[in-house]
């Protein structure tokens, strides 16, 4: 049956779940990962990202469901037999081994001949730019260098799936951007399938082919960064990815009744719409639309390339607007009207 799945599917997860004693860490989820793609698992703390990763790597036993890699059911395969590499958040470098020995470890486990080990370790070291540091102890390296060793140790045996659990979490912003580029380059060069955990949405947007957004042990939505940003399917997704203005309310004869007033709905809005979402860059101030909400400027923050204006609306609702930096200043207390093009509004049903 699994042979029937799409040939470009690398990894297929069906109803996979995990329960610890009575706490549900992961509810049954389905997910397909395509060969060679870089998928990020994004979500708030405790949403089950690490758990899903551990289930895929086999480090914890599954409660229900199954896992198919390359058309073969691997649900119960021992960890060391899966063709998977894991980069841990804490790097998990062996402190009693040198950098070189760390990288050689997976090859020794696979009984690769010694001379081949040597050349492959050299290549891996060169790939991450650490050819000079092979005989050092991992403890004597900086955080970024340790991260590279961990990456090299994972790449050296060419696993076809690489799992990374917040690998950049411990690095400072600058180094993180450098390492993001590095990971992208390695992804391009090796063609490996990468599943990358992060709780930083900017990182997810910058890196991924696709994002899998998780919440409360469930998958909220899977899609390309553009789909996630432009077509969120739930309030949670809209709120989590990017800055958004969300008005929740109930549908009343073609309009949405919200705390901030009645909002128009376009004809194609689903009947069960429960919220309207509009991105800050799509809000029009003092426009000429047939409808508008009244508000006052609360704050205007200059941020170089743009100005962010916060506007107070009725019903304690506030709204964020992004304007080109060159546009005229908006004084605090200034009365304005806000509206938007119906085509830019997103209708959320949950």
């Amino acid at each position: 049956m699994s042979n029937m799945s799409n040939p470009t599917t690398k990894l297929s997860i069906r109803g996979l779940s995990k329960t610890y004693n009575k706490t549900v860490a992961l509810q049954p989820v389905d997910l397909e990962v395509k060969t060679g793609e870089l998928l990020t698992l994004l979500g708030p703390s405790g949403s089950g990202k690490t758990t899903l990763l551990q289930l895929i790597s086999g480090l914890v036993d599954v409660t229900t469901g199954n896992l198919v890699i390359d058309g073969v059911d691997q649900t119960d395969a021992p960890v060391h037999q899966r063709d998977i590499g894991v980069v841990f958040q804490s790097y998990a470098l062996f402190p009693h081994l040198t950098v070189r020995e760390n990288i050689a470890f997976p090859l020794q486990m696979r009984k690769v001949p010694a001379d081949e080990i040597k050349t492959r370790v050299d290549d891996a070291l060169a790939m991450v730019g650490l050819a000079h540091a092979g005989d050092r102890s991992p403890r004597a390296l900086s955080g970024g260098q340790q991260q590279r060793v961990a990456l090299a140790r994972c790449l050296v045996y060419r696993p076809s799936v690489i799992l990374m659990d917040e690998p950049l979490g411990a690095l400072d912003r600058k180094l993180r951007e450098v390492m993001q580029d590095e990971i992208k380059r390695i992804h391009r060069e090796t063609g490996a399938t990468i599943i990358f955990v992060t709780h930083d949405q900017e990182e997810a947007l910058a890196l991924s082919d696709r994002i899998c957004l998780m919440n409360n042990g469930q998958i909220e939505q899977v899609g390309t960064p553009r789909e996630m940003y432009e077509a969120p399917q739930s309030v949670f997704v809209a709120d989590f990815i990017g800055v958004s203005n969300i008005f929740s309310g109930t549908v009343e004869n073609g309009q949405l009744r919200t705390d901030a007033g009645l909002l128009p709905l376009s004809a194609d809005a689903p009947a069960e719409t429960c919220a309207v979402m509009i991105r800050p860059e799509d809000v029009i101030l003092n426009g000429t639309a047939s409808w508008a909400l009244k508000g006052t400027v609360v704050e205007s923050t200059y941020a170089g390339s743009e100005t962010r204006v916060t506007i107070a609306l009725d019903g304690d609702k506030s709204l964020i607007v992004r304007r080109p930096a060159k546009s005229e200043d908006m004084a605090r207390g200034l009365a304005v009207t806000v509206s938007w093009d119906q085509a830019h509004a997103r209708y959320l049903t949950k």
Partner: protein
Amino acid sequence: MSNTTSTLPAGQATAPRDKRRFSIDSIALAAPGGLFLIVLLAIPTLSLIGLSFQGMDGAFSLSIYEQMFGAKIYIDVLVNTFSIAFQATVLCLVFGYPVAYWLSRLENRPRRFAMWFVLLPFWTGALLKNFSWIVLLARNGIANSVLQSMGMEAPADLLYQRTTVIFAVAHTMMPLAIMTMLPSMLAVDRTLVPASRTLGSKPMQSFWRVFFPLSMPGATAAGLLVFVSAIGFFITPQLLGGPRDTVIGQLLIQQVTQMLNWRLAGAIATMLLAVTLIFVLLYDRVFGISSVTGGASAKLSSGPVRDFGHRVLNLIAMIATAISEAFAKVLGGYRFGWLLPTVAIITVLVLLIPVVAFIPMAFGESSFLEFPPRGLSFRWMETYLTSPVWTDATLRSFYIALACAVLTAFIAGLGGYGVARSNGKLGSIAFMGFMLPMIVPNIVIAVSLAYFFANIGLLATDIGIILGHTVVSLPVVFIIVLTTFKAHDWRLDQAAATLGANRFQVLRHITLPMCQGGLIAGFLFGFLHSFDELTIAMFVGGGLRQTLPKQMWDDVILSVSPTLAAASLVVLLVVTVLFVLAEVARPRA
């Protein structure tokens, strides 16, 4: 112009000097401890060593060493001592390691619970456990009944056997080994073994090539501590061994308490000390002494020793993997999860047997000790409570332990604070100094002090015993206090200072309240250490000032009466209560 430029560097130059003065300032608090150890450890030991190199006339002479190495009996005793100590150490490591490993893998809560069962036999001391073995392993004891019910013909002679001695020494030292091994196992990053599994290693390979080498510092430190303690240990060989199992400790007792032969005692002590030092130096050479304290270094040792070690481990890993794979095939998977807990729990139960067995024995009816006891009576409790010999000894033990705890807590408290607050070279020297009484065998300290006190009139006085107990309990208390102060967040003190508190107020309102758990624990452990200490009490008490353990010792040498069990029960009770209090007070790092 030139004026300003010349004052500026001078002003800068004072800044670092101020800083240095500050660190000398805090390490100066270790001075009382240093002085104490110089007077009561260094001088006594060195003068006893000096004595052994003098002839009758006071001139330099090796005659006593010629006499010692010339007599076969002394050589035999030496061989006994080292062979018993070595075999017991091996047993401690082989059985202690799985227990420590099992403990290290438990979650925090169950681990704390399980640790009680290792710590209880640790703090009940050697005496009780060995008394218990006498009863349990006696010809008509329970061990023999069990063996006979399993089909053995005649009752086996379990007592007065070399094997029994080795077993009981290992049994006595095992908790020390476990407690020494555990911290370095807990320090192993929990992601490393899973990481190695994802890199393709089989379970056995992960253990032998990743976990085991990382746990080595603790295991080797345990080996060193157990061996050093075991070569000066005499309780088990005396109580459970035959004449052919005599060890150095017994020889020393004989030479000092019966023959007052200080020169020979000095020679024996010198040799014990020399052997200990050789082992410590060897250890330092191979592993680095800092690994005793669990200090991790960023530098990897290199060279042939490391290569050889890795080769051996790889070989073991290969063999272990082959075996486990074979079994896995038979069992249809890696179903060995039960093995470790089973071995560990059985070991811990064996540790507990002699401790627990005492409780019913104290309430037996018959006029000799037996297990299981027949009938229930309080007559032995009564004998204990109404006999002045026993009550005097108990009271003396109490106030000696109290005085020792106060003194130790004071010295170790100052020293711990000083060392925690300094990170200079002086700090690590002071650290080593405070640990010395742990490395010098207790019996050497005891003999040296007895000699020293005999010269200054403190022999057979309570003060002498208090001072001696303070020397030997310093290391443990110091470590507890030091870890407490090291874990303290000193920024809080700085914050308090910026809020207007002076140094004394900071100490009173911030440092002490936050560190009080550790200090109380240190105090209680000092008390415990003194309360069941025998060696110092035996040599320094001179047979006149009987502490409770010494009274028990004399009683067991003469006759093993049920009064002894009653007394032991009291000790067990006091120890358990105090140790529970101490463990509860002690902050968790």
